[in-house]
């Protein structure tokens, strides 16, 4: 790792899926880093590879058909050892010790993330006991109650015996977060944590994540298609399109001054609530078939600023630093 501030660095990460129809390059050369105690937001539309990126970190890609074919994921462990997650055996002991213990994950659908036949308390305790086999059960139970309390579930000592169907969506997402926090992870990956929730509940969950980050100092990767969510909680934002990050910067920079035409199009697609009502100017067309990605810049055929003879020829340049800390992959900014 070049930078001691970072807890995680992905370098030229490539995760491909080998299907009957052909190779899907779901993640195709991602370079991203997560700072200690900070939040990285990854935003993009369906099929851009944001979830595959997250699953690659924890080595949760089903294989076959998926495989990390190139690149590295440098992760700095508790004892400051640097380990390349991409090189680990996905079923080995090392990654298992990291999963849940150092890096944990919350998923989009809290309703399907818990098993319906066990109580919430049992499922959280199970996670604690797997990572701390010596801990007494009563102690694990107390810890579970404290966790549920911490994430704002009222009457935690009673709710610990509830089954998932007795919880609302927002409460389940809280329980999910409690489980993810049970082993005090240093990095939390939240994959669309509020997409299935109502706005007022979404607000509660986002607030909770920020509070917990202040208390524990953990780093967060938040993956979402919702720009508003990302702009509120993320310190840095990466925009992904067809398996690559096309732009990466501090939140304020990228929101106020988007550079990549795709980012601009995305920003102009979202009806805003504040300010004057403006006409939406969405990106035209749709995301191409991931198996037949056009040559040149993958965004070229939808790009309003496409330069014929340039963008449809070679690959877009690697990261160009347009202003300090603001990176973009686009011919418009190459010298």
């Amino acid at each position, binding site marked *: 790792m070049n930078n001691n501030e970072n807890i995680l660095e992905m370098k030229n990460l490539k995760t491909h899926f080998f299907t009957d129809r052909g190779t899907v390059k779901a993640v195709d050369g991602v370079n991203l880093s997560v700072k200690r105690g900070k939040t990285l937001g990854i935003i993009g*539309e*369906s099929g851009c590879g944001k979830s595959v990126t997250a699953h690659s970190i924890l080595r949760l890609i089903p294989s076959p058909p998926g495989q990390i074919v190139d690149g590295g994921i440098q992760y700095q462990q508790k004892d400051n050892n640097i380990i390349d997650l991409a090189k680990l055996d996905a079923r080995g002991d090392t990654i298992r010790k990291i999963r849940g213990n150092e890096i944990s994950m919350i998923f989009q659908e809290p309703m399907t993330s818990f098993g319906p036949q066990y109580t919430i308390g049992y499922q959280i305790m199970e996670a604690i006991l797997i990572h701390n086999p010596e801990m007494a059960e009563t102690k694990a139970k107390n810890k579970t109650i404290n966790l549920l309390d911490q994430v704002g579930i009222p009457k935690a000592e009673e709710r610990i015996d509830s089954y998932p169907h007795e919880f*609302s969506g*927002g*409460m389940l997402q809280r329980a999910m977060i409690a489980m993810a926090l049970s082993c005090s992870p240093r990095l939390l990956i939240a994959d669309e944590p509020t997409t299935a929730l*109502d*706005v*007022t*509940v*979404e*607000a*509660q969950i*986002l*607030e909770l994540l*920020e509070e917990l980050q202040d208390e524990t100092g953990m780093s967060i990767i938040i993956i979402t*298609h*919702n*720009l*508003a*969510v990302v*702009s*509120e*909680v993320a310190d840095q934002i990466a925009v992904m399109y067809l398996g690559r990050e096309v732009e990466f910067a501090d*939140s*304020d920079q990228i*929101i*106020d001054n988007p550079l990549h035409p795709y980012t601009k*199009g*995305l920003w*102009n*697609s*979202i*009806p*805003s*609530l*504040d*300010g004057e*009502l403006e*006409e*939406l*100017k*969405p*990106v*035209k067309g*749709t995301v191409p078939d991931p198996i037949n990605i056009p040559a040149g810049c993958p965004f070229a055929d939808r790009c309003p600023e496409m330069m014929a003879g340039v963008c449809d020829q070679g690959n877009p340049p690697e990261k160009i630093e347009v202003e300090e800390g603001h990176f973009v992959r686009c011919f418009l900014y190459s010298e």
Partner: protein
Amino acid sequence: MQQDTLVEIDNLKQYFAIEKGIFNRKVGEIKAVNGVNLKIKRRETLGLVGESGCGKSTLGRAVLRLQEPTAGDVYFNQENEKVSVLELNKKEMRKVRANMQMIFQDPFSSLNERMTVMDNIIEPLVVNKIGDKASRKKRAGDLLEEVGLRREYLSRYPHSFSGGQRQRVGIARALSIKPQFIVADEPVSALDVSVQAQILNLLKKLQKELDLTFLFISHDLGVIRYVSDRIAVMYMGNIVEIGEREELLRNPHHPYTEALLSAVPRAGQSRNRIVLEGSTPDPINLPSGCIFRTRCPYAEEKCAEQKPEWENIKGEHFAACHFKDSLELKGIKNRKRA
């Protein structure tokens, strides 16, 4: 009925009985829609916003009589004649329904997978026995172009289309019978943002060209603001506030509207948000008095005792809150970034 009113909803109630045991004994009821009054004007878009379970979809379905409402009435202005939709027999209903169509949320389950795009689009024409084979085919092709797809797609099946394309087919089908009134129930919620924006622009264009009237249901306040002329805010089966778009958003007079607006995530928002405690109350045992009082940060004793009446704020802006005059509620901001 006023000339410019197309649909009038009068004290509409939709209750669902909860039954138990082998004799289906009724043990309670869910008041999904609990006495809603609305007037939808010709050529306007009335946005209906609320959280899941507030009854907004049930209301939309009841207006089209896709289910039989428990009480109340829905009137439709058919050639300047006030027709009670709920009193019509099957044959008459079919005639009125040709003027009322629906666009659904999920583009993956609202089309028939076994029928070609053309058969999907002309189904309403076939059911209502309008036109012959050739004219229907021409109409289907015209509609496809109208919604931004190519005529050649007529013979394809829905499975080969993306979500956005399917939603366009769904819109073409709703338009095939030339309706005046369309209930759009979360038509863009399942779509990616750039596709969502394309569909919203399409709906606005079609409205202008075809003089359509929309009841547009969504949970997304940004979307609602973009398409609506007036906005109605729904909570637990009741409309709590209604008004002209900018007036309502900038000047909310119901605490629920304020909370909903402040909950929408945006940059720099978290520091001054009103976070509602808990979740919505049990729909079987609604709270006494004002339904919002259990979560309202401003609730007082009076709110538990008395149900607030509808009161006029100004112009077409109404709210149902005891303290609508004394509270100073925050609306949307004048500038985009905080």
